[in-house]
């Protein structure tokens, strides 16, 4: 399920611009596509090189910020990097996104239109023997996978109490300190939620209040309903299609994301 490769115009493509070049020039590799004279808002005194410099700084900023997997707000980008290039924020963010994808295989996605929060999604699937670091975060992702499965199989939401029960059955007691996960409740309710893997909401009209978990936007980007269903099927040694409604939903989801990828996003 690799996505079709998208060809990006080289980011170095820039019209020759008079004036000081404060930045090191972008590498001139081969004769890739060059003339991307997009009609951008042309601000008064900024050279293309200065804008490129901001783009490059933003890329590094996003990479550093992404290490904790927390969403990055546009306001933070403006405050730390863009500063008086604020009026060009959209253009610069978009170009930074193109570099992240072209060079690092990471996709910059806006997951919250209201607060303009962004996350980076790895477009490359993990492979057996791909050399990526194995650590406790791999175990955390395993735990997350269990919770995502539960949510999906229960019709896209799962009560908090149910989640804790299931984890307890798997010998991950949320009341006790776990040797890999530490405070399990905190990891699930706090870390996974802040990283946008999960959503944690009050169930309407419950008194005393009850809470439920849903998939967060990052989960939908990094995995898929079909992948989760296959995971469940493997554990239970059944065919994915034996869960009729989940299977159909996962198929629909696949078709939808395939057509979304086809249209370029």
């Amino acid at each position: 399920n690799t996505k079709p490769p998208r060809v990006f115009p080289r980011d170095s493509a820039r019209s020759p611009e008079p004036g000081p070049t404060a930045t090191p020039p972008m590498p001139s590799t081969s004769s890739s596509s060059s003339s991307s004279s997009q009609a951008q808002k042309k601000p008064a005194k900024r050279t293309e090189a200065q804008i490129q410099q901001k783009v490059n700084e933003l890329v590094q900023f996003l990479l550093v910020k992404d290490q904790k997997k927390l969403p990055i707000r546009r306001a933070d980008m403006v405050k730390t990097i863009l500063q008086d290039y604020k009026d060009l924020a959209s253009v610069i963010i978009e170009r930074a996104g193109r570099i992240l994808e072209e060079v690092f295989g990471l996709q910059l996605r806006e997951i919250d239109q209201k607060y303009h929060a962004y996350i980076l999604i790895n477009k490359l699937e993990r492979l057996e023997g791909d050399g990526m670091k194995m650590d406790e975060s791999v175990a955390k992702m395993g735990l997350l996978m269990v919770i995502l499965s539960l949510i999906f199989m229960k019709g896209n939401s799962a009560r908090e109490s149910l989640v804790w029960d299931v984890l307890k059955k798997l010998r991950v007691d949320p009341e006790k300190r776990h040797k890999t996960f530490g405070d399990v409740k905190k990891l699930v309710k706090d870390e996974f939620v802040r990283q946008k893997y999960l959503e944690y909401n009050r169930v309407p009209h419950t008194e005393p209040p009850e809470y439920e978990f849903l998939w967060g936007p990052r989960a939908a980007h990094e995995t898929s309903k079909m992948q989760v269903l296959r995971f469940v099927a493997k554990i239970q040694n059944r065919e994915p299609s034996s869960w009729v409604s989940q299977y159909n939903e996962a198929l629909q989801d696949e078709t939808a994301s395939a057509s979304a990828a086809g249209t370029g996003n």
Partner: protein
Amino acid sequence: MGEAGERGGERQEAGNREGSITMASSMTDSHRRFLQVLMSNGIIDAAEARRLHRFFCEQHKVYYAHDKLDDFIGIINTYLRPLFMEIRKGRSEDNGKIFYALVNLAITEATKVASDYAENELELFKKTMDLIVESESGYASSTNILNLSDKLQSKKMRKKEVEHVLQKFVQDKWLSERHGEYTLHTRCIMELDQYICETYQDVKKCNICHSLAIQGQFCETCGIKMHLPCTAKYFKSQPEPRCPHCNDIWPHDTRDLVQPDSHLSPRIPRTPRRISSSEPK
């Protein structure tokens, strides 16, 4: 650095190259994967780099030749440099082995660290680096580093905190530790060698390989310094151990200098970025 592709020896000429595919100068998924591994690990040894080079090229069906690893990395670097990063090739001072590390072409020595470390932690790093670089052996004892705790200008730390931060430095591959002694991690030297040379006027270069020498042996007569692996290699072919510079008797033991590999031991790592999909295939 900068030598042509090392032969692993184990690999024959790659049998059937996919000759029709030209050596592309743009990034492919094989390059991106290679880069992601370096982002995730910080540093990898040459054997792992060769394995991944081959694996990723085959995986993504792009041109592969076993002796073209450095060209492959060169392409990544043309894209990385404008982003203030670079994949560098260097040698471990412990064992002389080749490593590849992702480094920041930082303006200050700590652009990278700065994002994650507090100001007094950075100061601790700087002072630890002073101790290491200005020592003869290239090591600073944990006792001496712990004693820095109340010498910090920015904000004093308790000894316990210093211990904790030291661990973090080791995890993040700024320092490596052996028997309670700390030295600069290979990755740190690869990243900061220029900074170190500019900052410490007295810092020595290795008389054999001419790169920065933190750990090594000194000539007590003329003062030249040599890396341990360079020393071992050099004296192996000499009838008796004499300083290559002043020809005086070399006053140190020159055998068994090369430590067993210290950088390959598992360390506590950074995050991979993706939900590991349950099924490899």
